């Protein structure tokens, strides 16, 4: 692949559901398939469908996606994404689930809300705290949603596109410091 090659354009027709999308569809959970990321099936589910979908994917013997690799957050241009990577030890397979919240749906002074999955995977506890800290996604039902990396009195969420750090004594360009 050369450098000037353009990324593949999004196809006009919606993609056929893949293995996991089909599985969820059979169990009554609708999902939308995105372009595969690095050969891994990527689906979008609604926020309300996330806990039942993950419960199904983890517990059913034919899928058995039993390892939560990571929970991350992305600030896209018009959406906040909460991204889950699942892994199956039994079938050596991977799945990426995204929950997208449109920025227009988020009221001023509020954070996008996504149900917490830390009662399914306790590993998600710290991951969700980190995502809340850096991207600013509120995980409803999280037992202890508090900043984990930044100091507790931090203002804003640093990995957002519109984040502007206030200039203070530790980062100004012409410091009146102890030099």
């Amino acid at each position, binding site marked *: 692949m050369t450098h000037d090659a353009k990324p593949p354009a999004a196809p006009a027709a919606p993609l056929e559901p893949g293995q996991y999308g089909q599985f969820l569809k059979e169990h009554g959970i609708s999902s939308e398939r995105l372009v595969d990321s690095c050969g891994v099936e990527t689906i979008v589910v609604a926020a309300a469908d996330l806990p039942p979908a993950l419960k199904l994917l983890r517990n059913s013997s034919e899928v058995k996606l039993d390892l939560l690799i990571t929970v991350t957050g992305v600030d896209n241009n018009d959406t906040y994404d909460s991204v889950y990577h699942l892994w199956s030890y039994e079938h050596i397979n991977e799945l990426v689930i995204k929950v997208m919240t449109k920025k227009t749906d988020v009221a001023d*002074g509020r954070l996008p809300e996504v149900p917490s999955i830390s009662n399914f995977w306790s590993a998600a506890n710290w991951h969700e705290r980190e995502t809340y800290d850096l991207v600013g996604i509120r995980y409803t039902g999280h037992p202890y949603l508090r900043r984990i990396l930044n100091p507790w009195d931090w203002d804003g969420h640093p990995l957002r596109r519109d984040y502007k750090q206030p200039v203070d004594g*530790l980062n100004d360009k012409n410091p009146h410091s102890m030099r």
Partner: protein
Amino acid sequence: MSEGNLIQAKSPSVPEELRDTVTLTSIDHAIDMLGEVLSPVISPVANLARSNSVWPLTFGTSCCAIEMMCVGMSAFDISRFGSEVFRATPRQADMILTAGTITRKMAPALITLYEQMPEPKYVIAMGACTVTGGMFNDSYSVVQGVDRIIPVDVYLPGCPPRPEAILDALLKLQQKIRTENYHERKKRTYNQRAVRYVDYDTGKLVDDLVAEAADLANGVLAPKAEAAGAKIAVPVAKPEAAKVEAKPATTAGAAKPEAAAKPEAAKAEAAKPADAPKPEADKPETKES
């Protein structure tokens, strides 16, 4: 620390919070008393001893710490210059090599460590991160140069510096120690607070909370003129009691606007370079949660 306290009890220049911190008091006291007359005589002798026994603090926050360990091993052997005794506590250290990136979350800890070291104390800013911020220039989480929070004696650039460079910085620091006048140095030291207690629930300094509680209590109980006097009388050692007092005051709600204005003033009053990164009290985060 008891013998140190015995001598310090007579010395009015040591603030109450540092009574446990300052241990090298006999020379301190003598130089205080005899001051400018004897300092030119005492300083060269004391400096010679000090410069050949600069004990570093074991402090490493990232990759520079590996070089710092390396320079302590036999290949480079910093003990040739009297600095091999890496102390695990700031009370016993003379010098701090800030080996590694200092994040904003680490900055209060570094300031506390620095203030817990007994005078005379020296700082070598080791590595690009602590000299200027280095490759974390414009990062939201990294202090852009450790000299913004503590005074630095020797700057040691490099990413990370070679062990020879650390030895060179140490020799430069020894030269500096040999040429300094201890009396002059003592005059330049600023008022330090050795320990800052931070409230676990709010992340605020306990001092601020105590001042806030005192303001609330004064707003309800006492007229405005007595506020300054009563504020000093609040026992700093018992933040719990002060917090409990604050609760009925908030429910009363009589002096709320006045009390809300006062902590800001107190904060601005207490502001020094070390406290600069403290953000505003009203933050959107608490509103959301």
